[in-house]
């Protein structure tokens, strides 16, 4: 009997073609460990919930037949060389499309693999714009890009009464491509928003001491601090700003403050930090309610900000698959390029360079919760400004 069972198991393994005929394979490489671990966890939650919900409805209809999706998800440990290796091995296993992880540097490494393998790639938590200017045909990102974030920073500041807006800004620039891009975008945005960049300092990711930047910002009396640190760097920056007695009126730390560990580790000191996740669970769009319910069931809270865009990637992919009419990489690529649909993050279209024309959103940590502060029509709380000194919270 046991032998028979073993044989049955072996024969199932020998017939992957049988399974392949039934499910469309999608490959995802996400940083579940390492410095982007908390962000990667959100990305994974979005993908998982979306695939579960689509499969619960029978799957994607391709050529009149309902086909389930099979998500093959691997961890790259926040290491770009591993991202590339994992994507290659998924490619060899016949995935029709790639879903990306978290963090622009990992996405940048992934983009060229996708291009080489002629496999469409959808990535979020990915604001790097430069990589889209290199003529990649298979790279798509339904996520706001650095120039968008810069531009919308003006709108964010416009929430503040004209006389009280920050006039001087310190940019803590991570020494990466994206850091450089955001510093340029924020410097540019300052012209229209009426602030001056008084400190523009660089640091290498993983630094243990940010006092040189903080002290410069403090002595220049900068009203605001803008930066894109990784979670560990962001937490160190806030702790050291408190120690050095410097509280900017407005702090935008994108990426570091995207995930719940921010408030768990920093408590009240983490409040008033603004993040640019691009989405929030209070935004109104079809499907958001169901997504929040599913997330609540799994994690005990409404969807985190990166979960929405990740969920939308699977929606876009499913929609493109049924329009392509076949699980074919090239047809799928063209169908994704022609996307014009409404997802949980609102309407999505792609520009010819693969960047998304999508809704933007800023949230702010208030009392240990991420409150949506912009755009105003969805806002769950007004922007808290200016931030009270750390010592008085």
């Amino acid at each position, binding site marked *: 009997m046991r032998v028979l069972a073993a044989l049955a198991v072996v024969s199932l393994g020998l017939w992957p073609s049988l399974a392949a005929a039934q499910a469309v394979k999608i490959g995802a490489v996400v940083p579940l460990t390492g410095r982007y671990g908390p962000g990667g966890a959100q990305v994974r939650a979005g993908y998982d919930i979306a695939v579960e919900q689509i499969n619960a409805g029978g799957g994607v209809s391709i050529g009149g037949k309902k086909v389930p999706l099979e998500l093959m998800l691997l961890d790259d440990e926040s290491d770009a060389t591993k991202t590339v290796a994992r994507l290659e091995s998924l490619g060899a296993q016949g995935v029709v499309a790639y879903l990306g992880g978290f963090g622009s540097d990992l996405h940048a490494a992934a983009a060229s693999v996708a291009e080489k393998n002629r496999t469409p790639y959808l990535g979020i938590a990915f604001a790097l714009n430069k990589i889209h200017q290199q003529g990649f045909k298979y790279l798509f990102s339904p996520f706001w890009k650095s120039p968008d974030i810069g531009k919308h920073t003006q709108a964010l500041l416009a929430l503040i009464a004209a006389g009280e807006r920050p006039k001087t800004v310190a940019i803590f620039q991570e020494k990466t491509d994206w850091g450089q891009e955001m510093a340029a975008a924020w410097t540019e945005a300052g012209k229209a928003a009426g602030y001056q960049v008084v400190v523009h*300092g660089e640091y290498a990711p993983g630094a*243990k001491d940010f006092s040189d930047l903080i002290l*410069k910002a403090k002595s220049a009396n900068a009203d605001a601090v803008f930066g894109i640190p990784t979670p560990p760097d962001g937490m160190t920056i806030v*702790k050291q700003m408190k120690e050095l007695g410097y509280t900017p009126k407005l702090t935008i730390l994108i990426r570091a403050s995207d995930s719940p560990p921010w408030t768990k580790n920093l408590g009240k000191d983490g409040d008033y930090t603004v993040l640019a996740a691009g989405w929030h669970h209070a935004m109104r769009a079809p499907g958001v309610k169901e997504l929040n319910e599913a997330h609540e069931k799994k994690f005990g809270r409404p969807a985190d900000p990166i979960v929405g865009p990740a969920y939308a990637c699977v929606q876009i992919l499913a929609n493109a698959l049924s329009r392509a009419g076949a699980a074919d990489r090239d047809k799928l690529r063209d169908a994704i390029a022609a996307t014009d649909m409404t997802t949980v993050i609102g309407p999505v279209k792609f520009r010819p360079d693969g960047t998304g024309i999508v809704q933007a959103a800023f949230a702010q940590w208030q009392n240990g919760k991420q409150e949506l502060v912009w755009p105003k029509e969805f806002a769950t709380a007004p922007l808290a400004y200016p931030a009270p000194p750390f010592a008085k919270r």
Partner: protein
Amino acid sequence: MTVLAQQLLLGLLIGGLYGLAAAGLSLVFGVMRVLNVAHGELIMLGGYGAFWLATLLGVDPFASLALVIPGALLLGAALYWSLFGFVVRAPEETRVKNSLLIGFGLALALHALAVRLWTADERSIPTSYAGAVLTLGDVSIPLVRLATLAVALVLIGALQLLLSRWRWGKAIRATAEDWQAALLTGIDVRRAYLLAFALGTALAGAAGALVTVAYSVSPSIGLEWTLKALIVVVLAGLGSMFGTFVGGLVLGVAEAASAATFGGPYREIVGLVIFVIVLVVRPRGLFGR
């Protein structure tokens, strides 16, 4: 001027942690001729030990050292019995090679274990006194980090005392000097190895707890701390625990000074340049015998 003083002071405070992190590695390397590349992972485990004590039992992170250090001591003994005890049976020339392999394996295993137990999220221990400062003129001294420096200094002092006064401490030193001669005089060299490894792990555990209060801990912090410790060990040379500690302080201040003069991105580079110069000019290290 005060800005520079402030930065150098903060560099000194970080240097204390570098020194403590390196002391354990230096002790193990000096005595056993074994390079434990999983040293950073042991630091990481110490950090999670303090994190658990703080979140589950509400123990203050500095008080938790009273439990973390003995715990790490036992862990070190267990690791010696199960893994590194086999390495020291090999002839001296092959020890480093073998220990590298075992160390990398152990590092990967501990990393995976930490992800299982605590997830990949960043953890830190929020305390009521976090961010409190002592102001000295225009220079502010963060109390938590000052306390980490003080604790590190006390631990190194205690270790030094242990090595110079205690019978087995002397045995450890004798084994480090020349294990064959030590063996001939009747010293149980295996026991000296075991003690050295356990003490080294205890120092790593203590360093981890302090890192977690002052910064944060995640399963992947191991490698960066192993590398920092290694730089300090080479910089300071083997033979003196205080030498290693001072080496850590030197690295911390040098990094701060280079960040102040050349800018943040060059912080680490200067440390590595000093490392290379010391290797070339004085391979024994600044305080090595």
